[in-house]
């Protein structure tokens, strides 16, 4: 039995709201298949399965808001029988519903159907909650008030012993625990609330995104010792090549300067693995591929940084198509979970609307961010004379725990050099 848990779709995600199941119990699923759509504070994301198997139970309900790590569903690996039930999994699922099929019914009354008509009383019991059918054994009984109070006070409700009817955890148990300083819940408070899914309220959604950005950026500046370097890069050759290239292309296939800059970053990173990867709890892991998180501002406010996967190995035409697709899907709110979690570095490009330079805040757990300002014509000294050239200021914000300014500067120089040979960039593969 495999537990499928709600993944963290980005460092700033603590919880998500299930919008849709794309599978049902008994469905065979393949690794990479989209099995659910989850609303984060930023977008509706297609959540992919990471293993082949068969869906056992769907434990999360549509509309349910749950902390990251909640068991959403159970899967059976190939060869595993349906009878091997999800007892242990369901017991742990926060606010999860036990399926109404299979074991639960069987446990309540074997052969109960046949006996029922004869035993059904003329008058049903009026009061006496103890007469209610016993809840399925694997479901922990926790009262709604206890849940709410625990969430508000950061009490880990799973660690409590219930003193209510049928051993239910009730409000008094949480109050006692809170007074005694019980173990804190693994997630921040308000993980469980009575609110509607934020997707239903535009204003709430924008506020939630603001909060998510605030959390991630505050964490970045709190934990990551940033250093900054910058370099002015002449783009006369690059833009001339682009113009020539685009003149031979159909309108829909023309390349934007941004895609050239992205490709150059991905290629340059090969020699600077200390800028490409993730730092978890102070331990740095280099990523094998360059997945460029592209900062995309959203029309309703806020931004999101989904990744162009393995950008270093793709021709410019492919990258351009993927970038267009990514921007459209980010704004439509239909990103894939891997795009939100797999970024290894972020590139922010202010483009035509921007200022001359930008110095970014690193998106944890990444360790670097490359910023491009607006491409403008500037006086440029070269070969003992002054010319007017299109120039872009590239900057690097990097994690000083992982790399040093000297290497960061060399990386920007490499980037500048690559952009002087655009035709080579197009051919660059892995």
């Amino acid at each position, binding site marked *: 039995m495999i537990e499928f848990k709600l993944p963290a779709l980005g460092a700033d995600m603590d919880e998500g709201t299930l919008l849709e199941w794309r599978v049902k119990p008994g469905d065979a699923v393949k690794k990479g298949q989209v099995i659910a759509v989850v609303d984060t504070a930023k977008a509706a994301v297609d959540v992919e399965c990471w293993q082949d198997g068969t869906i056992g139970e769907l434990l999360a309900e549509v509309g349910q808001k749950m902390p990251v790590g909640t068991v959403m569903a159970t899967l059976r690996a190939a060869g595993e029988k349906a009878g091997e039930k999800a007892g242990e999994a369901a017991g742990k699922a926060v606010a999860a519903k036990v399926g109404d099929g299979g074991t639960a019914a069987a446990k309540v009354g074997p052969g109960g159907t046949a006996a029922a008509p004869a035993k059904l009383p003329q008058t*049903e019991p*009026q009061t*006496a*909650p103890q007469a209610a059918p016993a809840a399925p054994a694997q479901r922990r009984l926790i009262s*709604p*008030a206890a*849940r709410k109070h625990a969430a508000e006070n950061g009490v880990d409700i799973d660690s409590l012993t219930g003193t209510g*009817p049928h051993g239910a955890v009730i409000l008094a148990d949480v109050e006692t625990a809170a007074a005694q300083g019980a173990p804190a819940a693994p997630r921040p408070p308000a993980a469980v609330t009575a609110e509607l899914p934020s997707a239903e309220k535009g204003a709430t959604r924008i506020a939630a995104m603001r909060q998510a950005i605030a959390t991630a950026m505050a964490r970045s500046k709190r934990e990551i010792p940033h250093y900054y370097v910058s370099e002015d890069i002449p783009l006369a050759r690059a833009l001339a090549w682009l113009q020539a290239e685009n003149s031979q292309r159909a309108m829909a296939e023309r390349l934007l300067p941004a895609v050239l800059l992205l490709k150059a970053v991905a290629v340059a990173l090969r020699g600077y693995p200390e800028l490409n990867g993730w730092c978890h709890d102070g331990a740095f892991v280099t990523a094998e591929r360059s997945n460029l998180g592209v900062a995309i501002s959203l029309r309703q406010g806020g931004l999101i940084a989904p990744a162009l996967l393995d950008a270093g190995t793709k021709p410019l035409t492919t990258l351009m198509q993927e970038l267009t697709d990514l921007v459209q899907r980010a704004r439509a709110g239909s990103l894939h979970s891997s795009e939100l979690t797999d970024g290894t570095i972020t590139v922010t490009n202010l483009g035509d609307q921007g200022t001359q330079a930008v110095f970014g805040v690193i998106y944890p757990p990444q360790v670097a961010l490359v910023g491009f300002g607006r491409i403008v014509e500037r006086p440029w000294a070269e070969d003992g004379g002054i010319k007017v050239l299109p120039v872009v200021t590239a900057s690097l914000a990097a994690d000083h725990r992982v790399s040093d300014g000297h290497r960061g500067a060399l990386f920007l120089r490499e980037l500048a050099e690559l952009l002087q040979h655009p035709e080579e960039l197009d051919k660059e593969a892995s």
Partner: protein
Amino acid sequence: MSRKISYREAMRAAMHEALTNDPRVFLMGEDVGRYGGTYAFSKGFLDEFGPERIRDTPLSELGFVGAGIGAALGGLRPIVEVMTVNFSLLALDQIVNSAALYRHMSGGQFSVPLVIRMATGAGRQLAAQHSHSLEGWYAHIPGIKVLAPATIEDARGMLAPALADPDPVVIFEHAGLFNMEGELPDDWTVGIASAKVRRAGKDVAIITYGGSLPKTLAAAEILAADGVEAEVIDLRVLRPLDTATIAAAVAKCHRVVVVDEGWRSGSLAAEVMARIFENAFWELDAPVVRVCSEEVPIPYAKHLEDAALPQPEKIVAAVKGLFA
């Protein structure tokens, strides 16, 4: 200064006041005139106000409730007395299909400022055909207001705002309350918009209305002796329900018992529970339970009738079950 009067006297005073203050008001129903009212609510009215305004009717609920609707449409303010809710079933077409709908069917051109009073409830050994509690049926119907005065103050005060309402109002008077006596303060004011907290508590909210209110208050006293502080909510207005007061009591006490003399299935108690789940689910610390009438025809025999109805002991047992 307050004075002690009975529920019956309070109702009579309310009608007397209405008849005195507004010439458009008249009373119509079976035995309201020469007999002085089945429950003596209109004793002496025929002599004082005359046969035009205190009108005895034939035994035809369909006819005289319809006549009341017509009079209301014509500009009068009729008080139609139906002897008991059991007999009002004969007038359901007039109430549900006509009175409740005319504002809608006329595109807002006509309203029906009609007050229908009827006795309800069991407990007096009148057997199955005279002991129904069908308030929940009426509370289902958009277009009418449904009131259930359960205190001396409400018996005295609810009629005036009901008559002032431009739409039909049905008032349910529980026959078990008529001889109840209580203090009527001099400065009473009564509205028909909200539920009321009749007893403040913190451990359990008991939500009820009508004839079950005194039983619930008695249960609360027994519980208090055992250290359980019950908050008692009197719904008073059965349609539209005051969801905010219900939700506030749930948020305060976290445990709820609903007491309703109606049969449980499809009852007003069920609607109250549904509102709780919709509006206050996260405040609950225990399942919500009900004390309703047994789902049988109300028996004639005293001990069986007592056993079929909500009683203080049953309410106490239901509350204690929440703490078991």
